């Protein structure tokens, strides 16, 4: 079923017209209502009247995660706080999270986009949807929750973790749809296997997975182990949350809800648009959002766009599965981790420049993080228990900052490779 056929199957001309009208309106609004955007536009000599067509989009300055951080917490909000009905946050490049605010209309728009996504995945109002994304500041849980209710399906808001309980509900409630990170569903599949529960005895038929990169191999693995159709959903809290785009049952790229988000692909080095169909960094301009409208927001995700009509009948442009990042952000068990966060924790603990190396591995289906830290002389103690306390202290501080569990290994000074340019801080051994 197509939830909003008028939009999702619109001709390119009528979509462009709708996008143009909404873009012009958004630019006018942010110029007048958000000092931050007015300043940015004035710096490049732009006035709202300069933006008349979609081709004018490239004249606008980019927005980045750093801009959101610099205006922490609410500096990029375009409406008074009395209009904001919900706040979410994701991890930022340093200690501060990236904060986003939603108006009542934003929440409704988000629910609409998630509902469209669920329909793309083949979910109907007769389904029981087990939402195993985390509920809280993270957008996954509540995003899927509202979209499911909006569709009229039954939502099971179990949130993330507690695998035994997940399995119990899959069995007892007969959930037909599960939403979580792809690595977590593989973990559930493993536990099912250990418990000798045959996946075909479950009623599960569709899985909607996102919040971290996953490969076609992983998809095949999930589909085979759980005997379901595995659908990729994309989103980021800055732009909205899950449901910015989603695959249909043809699994041939994620349909972008482009009546709300205009996508562009740029070369991350030159910042110029790439040739149509080429891979580059995905950039979004939100054209209906009220809480935080974003103009040309750099997602750092690398992908390409497909404008051909999909077999499902939708004309919405599709984006391929993300191929990587143009920055050093790691996505570990759905959590964004920046090496700079680890650095700032270590800096707090010593006077000197910290030398560290992050190893990311995939053990079974769960990502693990090991941080090697050089033992500088000011850290070094002759006693084992002191060094073990130090390890524990670093581990505790890292875990409370990053929000994921890590192991810490002390290594000798100067064993971590120094480089003249940008230090190599991450060794990612995951085969995704």
């Amino acid at each position: 079923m197509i939830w909003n056929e008028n939009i999702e199957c619109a001709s390119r001309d009528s979509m462009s017209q709708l996008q143009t009208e909404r873009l012009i309106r958004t630019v006018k609004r942010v110029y007048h209502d958000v000092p931050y955007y007015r300043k940015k536009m004035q710096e490049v000599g732009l006035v709202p009247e300069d933006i008349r067509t979609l081709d004018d989009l490239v004249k606008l300055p980019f927005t980045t995660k750093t801009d959101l951080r610099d205006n922490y917490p609410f500096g990029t909000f375009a409406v008074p706080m009395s209009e904001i009905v919900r706040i979410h946050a994701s991890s930022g490049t340093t200690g501060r999270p990236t904060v986003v605010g939603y108006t009542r209309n934003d929440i409704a728009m988000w629910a609409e986009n998630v509902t469209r996504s669920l329909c793309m995945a083949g979910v109907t109002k007769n389904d029981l949807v087990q939402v195993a994304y985390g509920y809280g500041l993270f957008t996954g849980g509540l995003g899927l929750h509202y979209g499911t209710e909006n569709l009229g399906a039954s939502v099971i808001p179990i949130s993330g973790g507690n695998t035994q309980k997940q399995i119990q509900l899959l069995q007892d409630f007969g959930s037909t749809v599960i939403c979580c990170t792809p690595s977590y569903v593989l973990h559930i599949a493993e536990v099912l296997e250990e418990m000798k529960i045959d996946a075909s005895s479950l009623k599960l038929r569709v899985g909607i997975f996102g919040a971290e990169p996953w490969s076609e191999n992983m998809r095949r693995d999930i589909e085979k182990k759980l005997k379901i159709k595995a659908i990729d959903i994309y989103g980021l809290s800055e732009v909205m949350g899950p449901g910015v785009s989603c695959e249909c049952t043809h699994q041939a790229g994620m349909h972008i809800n482009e009546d709300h988000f205009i996508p562009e692909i740029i070369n991350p080095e030159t910042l110029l648009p790439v040739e149509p169909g080429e891979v580059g960094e995905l950039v979004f301009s939100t054209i209906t959002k009220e809480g935080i409208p974003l103009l040309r927001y750099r997602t750092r995700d690398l992908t390409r766009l497909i404008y051909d009509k999909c077999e499902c009948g939708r004309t919405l442009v599709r984006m391929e599965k993300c191929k990587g990042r143009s920055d050093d952000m790691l996505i570990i068990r759905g959590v964004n981790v920046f090496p700079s966060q680890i650095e700032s924790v270590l800096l707090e603990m010593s006077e000197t420049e910290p030398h560290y190396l992050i190893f990311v591995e995939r053990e079974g289906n769960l990502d693990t993080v090991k941080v090697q830290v050089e033992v500088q002389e000011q850290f070094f103690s002759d006693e084992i228990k002191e060094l073990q306390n130090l390890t524990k202290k670093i581990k505790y501080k890292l875990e409370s900052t990053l929000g994921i569990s890590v192991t810490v290994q002390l290594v000798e000074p100067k064993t971590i490779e120094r480089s003249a340019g940008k230090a190599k801080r991450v060794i990612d051994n995951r085969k995704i």
Partner: protein
Amino acid sequence: MIIKQLSVFLENKSGRLCEVTNILGEAGINMSAFSIADTSDFGILRVIVSDPDKALQVLRNNHFSVNLTEVICLSCPNVPGAMAKALNILNEEQIPIEYMYAFSMGEVANVVIKPTNVRKCIEVLQKYELDLLKSSDLYKM
């Protein structure tokens, strides 16, 4: 009575101890006693050498995490019950010990002790007239 012991942080990987001994050997530094404390990830080499200050310098120059720790060396007769006698005294006088290691040669047994409070430990052992080695004796061994 205080002896300077060298403590070196070592990762658990092959060849590290070998490298430390090579560096000390090339610098003409003799080792009188050592022990290694180990965990699954790392170890600490504790060593008594002929010239602790010079050893500290050469190891630092070779990028080892190293420091000097104050320990004492108790010398007792190499006979049954000698160690028990010393430990009973420390126990009764409530002198906590972080770690110790020992070596015996002929008539005598030497025990390197790292007490939490070095000065207090020396005081107690001297009160009971136990034999403590001077650093000059030990470094020459």
